[in-house]
């Protein structure tokens, strides 16, 4: 068994390549989805009932569909409409669309827990539009939603493993390739699992550090 681990580890460049791909896919998704989710959350809180209901329906539907199904839909469905995409673009687009819905719901939830007096006072001090969000609302929502956003980030890492199905060279794909070459599946997937463990725990650690930092700053 030890010998098998050594054999699997001799393929470390492949593991590393897969890990790197997983990391950048998830990082790009996290940033882009967070940026896109803020306007979506604003729409979900708009005064127009029909707009609010429609956006909530879309978000709820996307959230209740498994990630793999959405990935299939994007990867096999888009070419039918004449849009040719390679697997990386399709995979990244799916990750972003799926998680924008999740992030928007998280932000909407945090936003609705913010006392309305905050916004009223800010408006009284002539904060409107973007300035109101950037200076008053945004920071408070991000601090309140921080841990949940962190959990969702971990979920992105775990969902990205599904992308192996559409031949994206991420960590699980790499592990699967290594095990078909070396015939040591048990050891290979344990190594992959440990790498995921390190990745998820680093995110958790990072989020808790950020939270502490925010708390210290706020106390001042």
């Amino acid at each position, binding site marked *: 068994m030890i010998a098998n681990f050594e054999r699997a580890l001799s393929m470390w460049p492949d593991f590393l390549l897969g890990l790197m791909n997983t990391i950048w896919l998830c990082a790009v998704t996290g940033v882009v989805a967070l940026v896109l989710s803020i306007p979506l959350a604003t729409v979900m809180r708009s005064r127009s009932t029909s707009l609010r209901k429609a956006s909530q329906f879309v978000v709820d539907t996307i959230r209740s569909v498994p990630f793999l*199904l959405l990935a299939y839909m994007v990867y096999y*469905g888009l070419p039918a409409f004449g849009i040719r995409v390679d697997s990386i673009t399709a995979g990244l687009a799916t990750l972003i669309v799926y998680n924008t819905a999740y992030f928007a719901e998280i932000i909407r939830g945090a936003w609705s827990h913010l006392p309305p007096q905050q916004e009223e006072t800010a408006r009284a001090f002539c904060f409107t539009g973007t300035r109101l969000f950037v200076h008053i609302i945004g920071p408070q929502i991000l601090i309140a939603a921080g841990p949940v956003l962190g959990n969702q980030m971990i979920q992105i890492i775990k969902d990205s493993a599904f992308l*192996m199905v559409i031949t994206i060279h991420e960590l*699980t794909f790499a592990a699967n390739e290594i095990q078909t070459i070396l015939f040591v599946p048990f050891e290979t*997937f344990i190594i992959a*699992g440990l790498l995921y463990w390190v990745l998820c725990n680093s995110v958790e650690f990072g989020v808790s550090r950020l939270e502490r930092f925010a708390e210290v700053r706020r106390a001042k």
Partner: protein
Amino acid sequence: MLYSLIEGTITTLAVSSASVAAGVPLGLCLALLRLSRVPVLKQCIAAYVSLIRAMPTVTLALFIFFGVPSLGIPLSPFVAGLLTICINTSAFQSEIWRAAIADFPRNQVEAAAAFGMSRQQTFRRVVLPQVWRASLPALFNETTFIIKSSPAIAVIGVVDLTRAASRVSAYTYEPILPYLCAAAIYATVVFILVTAQRQIERRIVIKYGVL
């Protein structure tokens, strides 16, 4: 086409519900062992739960499907899929139970001890009935989560709803319709679960005052 999708739905629901049914007691056992006073076992369980929770379901599915037979135990895709979801959810459910038990008010345990109840009696008669209700919302969340992560078993060849949809799409040359139907089915199942969760929570609040 509809027939294959229905068959896939049944597989998805069967695997999910069997896993929940097995995962609840398994998770409780893991949580109790972790909270017990057995020294080495406690740390081992904590490490195991942490690793399984961090591992993507797909990776776990491939690990079981390819890894277990390599140790000389033959597995069919269906059994491997069932094992995957079961192992995955038992780790998550052990966390749910552990959190619920850890949040349990100490004074009730002390009061039970004052009445001369043993540790087992206290757990069975005082802790479990209340913890069970407190962890119910998390349990429902976990169930919807299982349904959404169950397509992992499609990767190892089990024809669940997602794989059924991709099969139908492959032999009817319909690129989008089967997936939309499957999405509608998933959304309906999740919607039913969320509605049931709200109903049950409301009834518990009416009957016991608190969740």
